[in-house]
């Protein structure tokens, strides 16, 4: 992975992709934020935004190293190898082995940072409106360290790319997960389920109405997610290659098909095709094509999209059936969508899928990868949740929950469109602490 000649085209593509993936977390904040009631929109957004803060810093300190450092038994990378990005400046990642497609190692760091951030942020959809913000913040740190970084190592760290030895799923099981169906979506979806189970349902879940407060915000989130997802999937080729082109086209068309499938499902079941359904179908399609985008043909991608769109549209009802409150359907969309995509590869992979005469071997590998991540994520997340509950408490007080997390956790409200000013004065707290004169100003 030492190389002097950088391919500027590949580097440009991966830097753009990294920025696109980073945009996905604000996009997720809008997607989720629009779906809760108006009195919780800021808290919902902040759960994504704070993940950018904590996970971004951790990634640079030891997260990248835990994921892509030299493997300790295929289970986790050496967290000290690249601690604080040491040993990385001037290094390159060579993804083809022929020295023609080298990109600076720091580009890969940035690209993967954005993955880590959004994986954590995704979990928040399950716990909308009722988790303490301080506990969520600590959760992002602990969960990234104990769950995401190791699982990313399992799935994304190929031997000889970022370090000599990589993770067990990538190198031993040899499952295909091009851009993170297991490491991101199954992982986050499962974690959301575990956390929601420990946390309990929102007050009034299933009885009192909790409709989305701003569907233009939801649609904005979905639109930006789709845009960013081209970086997520096609960027995972780590170069501006024909593989990236295939991933790009599949990321488009699977999503188109999933949106249509979700809308048709709704139309048949509920009598209406909704905009929330379109936005949800978009995300479901993106999730499902994520692992598969480089393995299936465009027509295969359409099939994956249809399965994901219809499958997730049906699966979001599960929470009412089983009574767990996965508020914004992280399980129904990310876990189920991730499973659909990961397993569909076994059938539709053009090189060795069942339908292409490849037998059931690859399907088995896909299943092992999917369920290994699912089980690990569920168990560890559940334990983390119990520990945090014991130490600092998980839930808002009932009165805070009923009067809204925005006011109670952030002392803000999302919107003030009235032309009447009910606020009747302001008082300035403190201003600058000039060194040597720690005075406070009250006006």
């Amino acid at each position, binding site marked *: 992975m030492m190389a002097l000649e950088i391919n500027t085209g590949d580097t440009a593509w991966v830097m753009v992709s990294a920025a696109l993936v980073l945009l996905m977390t604000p996009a997720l904040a809008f997607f989720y934020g629009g779906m809760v009631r108006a009195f919780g929109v800021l808290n919902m957004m902040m759960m994504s935004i704070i993940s950018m803060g904590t996970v971004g810093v951790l990634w640079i300190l030891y997260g990248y190293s835990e994921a892509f450092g030299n493997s300790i038994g295929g289970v986790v990378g050496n967290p000290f190898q690249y601690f604080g990005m040491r040993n990385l400046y001037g290094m390159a990642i060579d993804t083809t082995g022929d020295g023609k497609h080298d990109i600076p190692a720091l580009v890969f760091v940035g690209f993967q940072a954005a993955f880590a951030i959004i994986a954590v942020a995704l979990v928040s959809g399950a716990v909308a409106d009722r988790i303490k913000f301080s506990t969520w913040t600590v959760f992002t740190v602990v969960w990234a360290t104990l769950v995401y970084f190791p699982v990313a190592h399992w799935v994304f760290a190929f031997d000889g790319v970022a370090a000599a030895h990589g993770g067990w799923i990538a190198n031993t099981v040899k499952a295909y997960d091009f851009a993170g169906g297991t490491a991101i979506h199954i992982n986050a979806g499962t974690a959301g389920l575990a956390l929601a189970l420990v946390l309990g349902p929102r007050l009034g879940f299933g009885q009192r109405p909790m409709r989305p407060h701003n569907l233009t915000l939801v649609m904005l989130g979905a639109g930006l997610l789709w845009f960013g997802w081209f970086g997520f999937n096609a960027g995972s080729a780590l170069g501006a290659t024909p593989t990236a082109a295939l991933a790009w086209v599949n990321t488009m068309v699977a999503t188109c098909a999933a949106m249509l499938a979700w809308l048709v499902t709704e139309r048949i079941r509920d009598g209406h095709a*909704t905009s929330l*359904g379109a936005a949800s179908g978009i995300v479901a399609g993106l999730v499902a094509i994520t692992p598969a985008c480089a393995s299936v043909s465009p027509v295969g991608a359409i099939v994956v999209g249809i399965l994901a769109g219809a499958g997730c549209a049906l699966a*979001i009802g599960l929470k009412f059936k089983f009574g767990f409150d996965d508020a914004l359907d992280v399980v129904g969309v990310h876990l189920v969508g991730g499973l659909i995509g990961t397993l569909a590869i076994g059938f539709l992979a053009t090189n060795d899928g069942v339908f292409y005469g490849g037998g059931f071997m690859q399907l088995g590998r896909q299943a092992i990868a999917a369920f290994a991540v699912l089980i690990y994520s569920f168990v560890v997340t559940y334990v983390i949740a119990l520990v945090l509950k014991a130490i600092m408490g998980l839930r808002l007080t009932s009165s805070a929950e009923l009067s809204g997390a925005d006011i109670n956790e952030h002392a803000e409200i999302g919107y003030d469109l009235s032309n009447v000013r009910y606020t009747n004065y302001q008082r300035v707290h403190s201003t600058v602490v000039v060194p040597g004169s720690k005075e406070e100003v009250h006006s």
Partner: protein
Amino acid sequence: MKLITAVIQPMVLNDVQVALAQHGIAGITVTEVSGYARQKGHTEVYRGAEYTIDFIAKVKLEVLTSDDLADGIVEVIVRTARTGQIGDGKVWTVPVDDVVRIRTGERGDEAI
């Protein structure tokens, strides 16, 4: 003096306002309200969960008037606001002890 209050369909507001103006009524005060009564609400669907909205958007008009004009005003409102469908609303009259115009301090019928 009287306070005439009417709860009407939002879409007839303009017609009523124009009719009142033609009838010589100088001022009205309008509030957006929600009504729950005979008229059926609608259903919304979000991710397969159905929401029934019982309350229907209505507009409340308030008109202050002298005693002698009150009946005429009620009549104008009832005539203009009628669409004939359930949900057309009500008009009611309440006695008023006194009215003051803030700008001038005028009282009673002068203030209207």
